[in-house]
């Protein structure tokens, strides 16, 4: 008997959840590990339950399905995702972020069975890859069956914003807890290895993302890359000071100093001209 497929159901509508539970109940080797009715619960449950598969609604309170996926993606053991919605317009975006399948409501048992089959294939493939990799190098960081980190995360960021629109909020996960930071509250963002530290409103949050990806999602009229490792909210800048030849610092309104590279200074000047 193989390990059961551990599935988490995420949908804000009770009838939709009970339908999924009913359908899944008829599959041998599937264990429903929980039901969530909003994005926060989903992120918490994924962190705690470590499901293999999440059946995820798109429009939900607190965090939408894509934001949930963004927060749990790119980690070892990240779950495979099947989106499940009445809206067909998110399908492209769903496959860009490597969803296993995209179920359009209303759907029947056969359609869900097909999606489960795909999920099993994807999980098996990821497991065999991980085995091969750890046998070769002994690396502990095997990729999960869900979205991989960088190129996908970039697609995520780009698609999450849609054409001509930029993120108005940044979602950050801290263990099982989720923080939503409105972009207007952000003072500056600092790159720290694979993470970015988002500073604003007296707090800082670490997010597993590169500075370039985050910069792409934010409104370039507000956030300027002043340095390889710094993205600043131009509304927080008090002044720019010249330290030496071609060496400048940005002084924020609260007195903090951030380094400015030569190309960063060019970008700032473009912004202000």
């Amino acid at each position, binding site marked *: 008997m193989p390990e059961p497929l551990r599935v988490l159901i995420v949908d*804000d*509508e*009770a*009838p*939709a959840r*009970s*339908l999924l539970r*009913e359908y899944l109940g008829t599959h041998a080797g599937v264990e429903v590990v929980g039901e969530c*009715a*909003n*994005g*926060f619960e989903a992120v918490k449950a994924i962190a705690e339950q470590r499901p293999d598969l999440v059946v995820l609604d798109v*429009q*939900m*309170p*607190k*965090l*939408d399905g894509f*934001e949930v996926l963004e927060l749990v993606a790119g980690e070892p053991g990240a779950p495979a995702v099947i989106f499940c919605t*009445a*809206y067909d317009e998110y399908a492209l975006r769903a496959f860009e972020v490597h969803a296993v399948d995209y179920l*359009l*409501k*209303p*759907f*029947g048992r056969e359609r869900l069975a097909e999606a489960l089959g795909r999920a099993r294939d994807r999980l098996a493939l990821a497991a065999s890859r991980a085995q091969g990799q750890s046998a070769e190098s002994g690396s502990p960081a095997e990729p999960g069956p869900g979205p991989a980190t960088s190129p996908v995360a970039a697609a995520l960021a780009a698609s999450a914003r*849609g054409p001509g*629109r930029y993120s*108005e*909020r940044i979602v950050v996960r801290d263990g099982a807890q989720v923080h*939503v930071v409105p972009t207007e509250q952000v003072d500056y963002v600092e790159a720290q290895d694979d993470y970015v530290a988002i500073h604003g409103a007296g707090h800082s949050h670490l997010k597993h993302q590169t500075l370039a990806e985050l910069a792409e999602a934010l409104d370039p009229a507000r956030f300027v890359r002043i340095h390889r490792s710094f993205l600043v909210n131009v509304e927080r800048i008090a002044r720019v000071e010249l330290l030496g030849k071609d060496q400048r610092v940005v002084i924020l309104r609260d007195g903090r100093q951030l380094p400015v590279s030569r190309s960063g200074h060019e970008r700032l000047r473009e912004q202000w001209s």
Partner: protein
Amino acid sequence: MHPLFARPVRLLIVVATAALFGVPLAWLLRLLEPRPWSAALAFAVPLTVFYSFIVLSAWWVCRRHPITGDAPWRAVAVQLGAALQATSIWTALGTFWALALDRWLYAGLTRAAMLRDLVVLFAAGIPIYLLSAVAHYLVLAFEASHAAERRVLESEVGAREAELRALRAQLNPHFLFNSLNSINALVGSDPEGARRMCEGLGDFLRRTLALGAQDEVTLGEELALVERYLGIEQVRFGERLRVERAVAPDAAACRVPPLLLQPLVENAIKHGIQDCVAGGVIRIAATRVDGTLRVTVENPVDADAPVRRGEGVGLENVRRRLEVFGARESQLFAAREADRFRVTLTLPAIAGGAPMEAARA
């Protein structure tokens, strides 16, 4: 500018026809005095071509003095005056042209022959101008009726478009998809509930089509439709969806454009109830104060809700419905407070049965 100048092909046809008119004129001149065809045509054809441009000026006179206007006799008098002017110019030019062709045209003839030719020219010029004026009046009348027809059609199409848009918004496919999904779920767990929901959905769709086909309905009818809609959404959202109603009876009797309220309630669910973990209360209120009907739809708002695209389409639709309804005092006002969103409609209060036209006037 005369419209003919914008259409070179037609202008060419007019000029060619005018040139052809030179032939009978040359024939007439030859009847009066014998002379070679070549000379008669050389005199007549350029003159008729030139006159065609003069008689086109009737277009401006016709536009300025419409025969269907307040003073048709004045228009006739003006046209007669214009005809005299036109033929005078023509005859003057004819004089110069006759003098220029003198040796050829009047070889062996007296000056009296030339004078007679010019009198003929003058006399012929008047009916030709008047014919042109009549033709221009006909064209203008045709254009006016055409434009009027188009205006009527356009306004009808505009009204139909607004109606269709409202119907389409009403029969929002996502609402149907989600409802079908709920029915799908109920079939397993609560077959009786599934049946009730099928019935409710059918009832809602039938009423929507019936109300949508009317020009106006009472607020009460509109609210009854909203109740059916809420009944269906209640299955999806359960305890998260709570509704408070405060509708005064005299307000419910007022006339409103159909399918006005449901888009607002749908918005209240989509951007209110659906975004709040614990749901909330949608408040629907209507009052009538003096001549004004005021309808408000209020929903809770979660400040942390994910940003959704395509907001405002529903409100825009409702605004357009109010415009088509035509009452100038009608307006839609949307306001966001800390954790509530409120849309207020104000319309002229017209009790059911009273004709709209009287109130609009």
